[in-house]
């Protein structure tokens, strides 16, 4: 098969029996084993938690409009940023792309009818919801104020808030991640269609495979750490209590051993999305396919070796600091390789400016800035100054929001036709993407400056010379909020009133585009046999290797 077809001249029909209309009723959704329906269950849940987390972000930024802590009390504010962090990290960022897009696409991308363990998949969602319920309970009953990082001894000995329910919520949800990762790993290893070798897999699958390695190896460590905090807090034992011989810094080592790889859980899938969008909307084979694939695995592996860079001023030895610093610089290199390869993919392509591509281009720019500022933090001498300041907040929001969320939204838009069978309104979507980009930069760029000036994190009140920059940041946040609300509205609208999309509106390659939109419950009428390389936009005879 040569160049894929694009929008056919006639309005396509909605397929007869697809996974959406094969059965109706609440039970058919809550007891489904179809990975596509489970993906939509997750879509609803993560969207819910995203807006909860966003609400708390808004409350934070409103308080920070003025230097004095005059909107809410300090204790309340401390709960705002804790809940914002917990909800966004554990209930949105970590599950978002894997549980929504990964669940939906991986079986199709490997030519399978479902994941290896469909019932486990559904159980994952229920576990996630149970964990979310604990956390919501904690929020509603007064909140938790330890910061999402739960540092001891404050979380074990000092905090009066609902630490245990919130911690339990995270503990439980962790198992959801573990099972999802397990499912992906087994499926990718054991259920690829005939002819689908590893290096014929889409880069999205590579990215999610690397992510799943982290799910499986890292999440259990945060689980046991949380358990230790809960045991210490309830039974008054001394894992981390210096008065009982414990070491509070041990908590930090255990916590960050997971939580640093966790940030790669959050960004690798988004990178996988970009690796799909850029070739499609450049109509071109990805430049350096193998390097992008290897880079994904390298990031996952190296990501486990750098946790101490969160602890340069914690009292760990200078020697440890040196080791973690150099490794942190090393882990940046594969990410840089990916950025260069995506950019090179665009060179000589046929670039469409549709909304997914706008998100992808925004991602490349913002992730580059976020990643480069990570080098400031890896650099020991500078980190001492900017550690625990707004510089760090700006850095990780550039990656998480400018990167991961834009990757998520880009992916949602890109695969929306496949998921819903409908086209979203293109003009409105581009407008929303631009609003998000502008709002984002206005919110977070001033925070780099605030950080170097010395404004610490988690401050309810601050010196008045920091106010103007904070006002800019809050203004940006309101714009950003509008940008996020728009897709919620028009995507929902499109499910009912959007134009039918047809099987492959973008003219993309990939197994998922060879089946109908929406797909049938079994994904394919006949199990595909793969006999060509991925991303074959141009005919095989035209291969040209540069340099």
């Amino acid at each position, binding site marked *: 098969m040569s160049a894929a077809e694009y929008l056919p001249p006639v309005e396509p029909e909605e397929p007869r029996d697809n996974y959406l209309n094969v059965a109706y009723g609440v039970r058919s959704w809550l007891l489904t084993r179809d990975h596509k329906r489970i993906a939509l269950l997750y879509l609803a849940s993560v969207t819910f938690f995203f807006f909860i987390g966003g609400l708390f972000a808004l409350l934070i930024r409103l308080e920070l409009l003025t230097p004095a802590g005059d909107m809410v009390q300090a204790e309340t504010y*401390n709960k705002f940023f804790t809940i914002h962090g917990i909800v966004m990290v554990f209930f949105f960022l970590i599950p978002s792309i894997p549980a929504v897009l990964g669940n939906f696409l991986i079986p199709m991308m490997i030519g399978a009818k479902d994941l290896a363990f469909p019932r486990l998949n559904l159980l994952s969602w229920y576990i996630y919801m149970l964990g979310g319920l604990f956390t919501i309970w904690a929020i509603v009953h007064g909140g938790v104020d330890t*910061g999402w990082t739960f540092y001891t*001894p404050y979380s074990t000995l*000092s905090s009066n808030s609902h630490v245990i329910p919130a911690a339990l919520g995270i503990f439980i949800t962790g198992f959801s991640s573990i099972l999802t990762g397990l499912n992906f790993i087994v499926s990718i290893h054991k259920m690829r269609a005939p002819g689908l070798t590893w290096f014929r897999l889409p880069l999205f699958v590579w990215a999610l495979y690397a992510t799943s390695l982290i799910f499986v190896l890292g999440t259990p460590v945060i689980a046991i750490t949380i358990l230790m905090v809960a045991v210490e807090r309830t039974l008054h034992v001394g894992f981390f209590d*210096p*008065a009982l011989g414990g070491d*509070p810094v041990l908590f930090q080592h255990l916590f960050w051993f997971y939580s640093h790889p966790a940030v790669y859980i959050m960004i690798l899938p988004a990178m996988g999305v970009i690796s799909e969008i850029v070739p499609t909307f*450049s*109509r071109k*084979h990805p*430049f*350096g396919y193998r*390097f992008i694939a290897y880079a994904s695995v390298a990031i996952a592996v190296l990501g486990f070796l750098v946790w101490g860079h969160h602890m340069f*001023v*914690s*009292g760990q*030895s*200078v020697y440890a*600091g040196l080791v973690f*610093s*150099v490794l942190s*610089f090393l882990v940046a290199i594969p990410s*840089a390789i990916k950025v*260069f*390869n995506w*950019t090179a993919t*665009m*060179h*000589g*392509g046929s*670039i469409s*400016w549709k909304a997914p591509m706008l998100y992808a281009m925004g991602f*490349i*720019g913002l992730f*580059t*800035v976020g990643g*480069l500022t990570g*080098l*400031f933090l890896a*650099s020991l*001498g*500078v*980190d*001492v*100054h900017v*550690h625990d300041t707004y510089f760090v907040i700006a850095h990780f929001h550039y990656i998480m929001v400018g990167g991961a969320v834009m990757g998520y939204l880009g992916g949602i838009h890109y695969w929306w036709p496949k998921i819903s069978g409908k086209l979203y309104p293109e003009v409105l979507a581009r407008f929303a993407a631009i609003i998000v980009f502008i709002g984002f930069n206005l919110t977070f760029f001033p925070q780099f400056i605030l950080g170097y*000036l*010395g404004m*610490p*994190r988690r*401050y*309810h*009140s601050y010196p*008045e*010379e920091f*106010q*103007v920059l904070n*006002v800019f940041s809050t203004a940006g946040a309101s714009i950003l909020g509008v940008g996020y609300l728009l897709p919620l509205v028009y995507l929902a609208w499109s499910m009912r009133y959007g134009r039918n999309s047809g099987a492959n509106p973008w003219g993309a390659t990939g197994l998922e585009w060879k089946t109908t939109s929406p797909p049938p419950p079994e994904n394919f009428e006949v199990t595909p046999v793969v006999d060509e390389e991925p991303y074959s936009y*141009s005919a095989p005879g035209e291969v040209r290797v540069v*340099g």
Partner: protein
Amino acid sequence: MRTDFPLFPDRASTMATHVDALFFYLLTVSAFFSVLIAFLVVYFAIRYRRRSEEFVPPRIEGSLTLEIVWTVIPLGIALSFFFWGARIFVSMNQPPRDALQVYIVGKQWMWKVQHADGQKEINELHVPVNRPVQLTMTSEDVIHDFFIPAFRMKRDVVPGRYETAWFEATRAGRYHIFCAQYCGTNHSRMVGWVSVLEPREYQSWLAGGAASESLASAGARLFAQHACNTCHRPDSLARGPNLEGLYGRLVRLSNGQTLIADEAYIRESILNPSAKIVAGYQPIMPTFQGLIGEEGILQLTAYIKSLGKPSAGGPEMLPPTSQSPLGGAVPPPGAPTPGGASPQKGAPVR
């Protein structure tokens, strides 16, 4: 609302100059690559804009040369960042030998500052300009962090151990002190001011302030108050090791290990005496946890430091055995490293 807001912090210490230089190097390189990538993405998007739905671009799989180039060059640049940052960091952890000693106890939600000669301050720190100052810090409750942006200085303040940091202020003025590790309700009010004074003003501050007894004499008072001298005495009635000349000396423990007696060892011996027993003595010393607070321990330590060398017949002095990369003898497992307050110090990197 102040409209004359700053965009860059004051530069008021020797270290700030080094940190800022590295920062500007990072900034320049980052700005260059950010602009380059942004430009290329936008330029390619425009130049190669889709003009026809039928056109399929030629297939380009990759280029090994390019991959190597754009791996090796960023790697080289990254390593340059590493080496420069590491150098600064190492010197941040090597306080000069003649530094003025200041002791800081953090607690929710205030900073208690004690100068060696007795001045006490709360949320304020007065120091002379152009003189290195070493801070020895601990917490009474949760982890805090002592942060002076103008000096580019920051260190976690951890309960149960001592952390040290140092700076040399270069410009007179008043600069923010912030707590930079979230510690509960009033974390953002755990702030203060460091006042850097010209030599004459510093002298008058020293003289004029409500200077009570020095740390060491307060420690002597505590020593007598808690009857430490019942066992720790230089004569034959002693049931505990003689403390004269203890500070900085090699100590041999009953389990065969040796260590250098530093602030952390003295503190542990007061709060948890059975953890390390000196060779030849019985484990009979009671614990003073709950009876003596962190400030009292600092006073006792200052007193012990002030005691002279013992006369002949005291425990043998041994040369230090192994060296750590930090330049001090390697402490035994369990003794928290006081981050730079080791007897052998290298010359600080300026």
